[in-house]
């Protein structure tokens, strides 16, 4: 199953305050260990919300547009990771490896399971019989 780790924005991420060298190295190492273990599917960082737009859709009328920056609260994203893991417990284990920013302020990560449109293997026997039986139904 796939999980998205939503790393929330902080004052520092919004102000573009660069992280320490140590933090950057720790971050790279943690992403590398996830990739090495065959867990990491995607990892992207968002630009600060000052360049962002929020669109509010209402049932009638045009959507309302609002320009950033937005408050650095739990609604605001700074990064996301997509990982593949066997369970929520395992996903939490991987999320723990994301290094805390240190110095700056608290960091929040939200874990959400991604909806899967993937399906299991096909069953040719059943498909084959269905085609055959539909053929007979048509002739009947």
């Amino acid at each position: 199953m796939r999980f998205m780790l939503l790393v929330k924005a902080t004052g520092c991420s919004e102000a573009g305050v660069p992280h320490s060298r140590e933090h950057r190295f720790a971050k790279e190492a943690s992403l590398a260990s996830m990739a090495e273990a065959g867990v990491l599917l995607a990892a992207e960082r968002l630009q600060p919300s000052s360049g962002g737009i929020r669109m509010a859709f209402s049932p009638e009328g045009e959507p309302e547009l609002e320009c950033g920056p937005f408050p650095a609260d739990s609604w605001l994203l700074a990064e996301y990771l997509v990982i593949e893991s066997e369970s929520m417990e395992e996903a939490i284990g991987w999320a723990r490896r994301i290094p805390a920013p240190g110095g700056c302020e608290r960091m929040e990560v939200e874990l959400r399971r991604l909806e899967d449109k993937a399906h299991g293997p096909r069953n040719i026997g059943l498909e084959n019989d269905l085609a055959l039986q539909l053929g007979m139904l048509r002739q009947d």
Partner: protein
Amino acid sequence: MNRPAARRTVDAIWRIEAPKLIAALTRMVRDVGLAEDLAQDAMVVALERWPETGIPDNPGAWLMTVAKRRAIDWIRRNRQRDDKYAELARVSELISEDDMDKALDGEVGDDLLRLVFMTCHPALSREARVALTLRLLCGLTTEEIARSFLTSEPTVAQRIVRAKKTLNAERSSFEMPSGEELAERLSAVLEVVYLMFNEGYAATSGEHWVRPLLCQEALRLGRILAELAPREPEVHGLVALMEIQASRLRTRVGDQGEPVLLLDQDRAQWDRLLIRRGLAALERCRKLGRPLGPYALQAAIAACHAEAPTSEETNWIRIAALYEALSRQAPSPIVELNRAVAVAMAFGPAYGLQIVDEIAGLSALENYHLLPSVRGELLRKLGRYGEARLEFERAAAMTRNVREQELLCARAAECDARSSD
């Protein structure tokens, strides 16, 4: 031969030979990831050489020789290093000169089954096992696997990386398990073998002409398994299912000597020998005196069709009962759809429609053209032409098969004419 032509030929040969190469190499180096790399190295050598030398008479043996030489080089290099680094001693402990000799002229068939058992290690999740099997045993690319499961390529790639790591970490042995361990892994092994068969069969209806070999390989593995675990009813059930389904898959040789596939629903074309073998396997399963499992039930349904001399003489009541049992043991929307058709044939379209309507809203069947095809057919039989026409039109819009599209459009037009009568 030019390079693109060589590439295509090597690709085709790769699909056939890769599983055997990987299996034999895994026995030598005890690392399935490394074995795959070595096999791919051999293919790169072939791509360089064959445009100049032409394709050897026995390309599989040629690739196997090159790959095994690479494996031996790798083992020797490691052994030299082992003298310096004691922690790498594993390889030299495991591989003796004797092993290397055995690996060089060893029986490949058994290796393939060992590889199947290895990919069924309990530490692997079902998703991981499926991805690894399609890659190693069916020779599919990550892109093809991703496409057939509607998932992303990185997901599949990472799943495979992870699966190989798990196998290495578990030191998953390359020996055939026995007793309890064999029984434990058996249902996963049966699933893998059926997956190979499915892949061979499905691709056969597409553009890859080499795939019937995959069906045959799966059948062969199934027959060996039936001898290894003769007291397990589902092994015989699976063998019966594959034999009978394979009987409907006919191949003939075209003008250029290339195999041409005929997927025919014409029962006169069905291979009687395969049907007899399938019925015999089903009989072995029944003699064990336990209720039929999902494979055996599917085999029994296919057997009903195979045994009916003409389609009019089909025992629909029995088929409907078998689908009912299957829907309890292994429920799925496609089982229900099959059951709806069988019930309609046995007891009338109104009862079939009831079953179809219960599954009509499921997202798993959203883009499945056979759902509106079946529903349309049942509505037509009930004289509800207006609704039937809509279903046929929906079905026609969903299918990419031109012949099927024409048939559905004709049905829709017929219903249109009748509804305005």
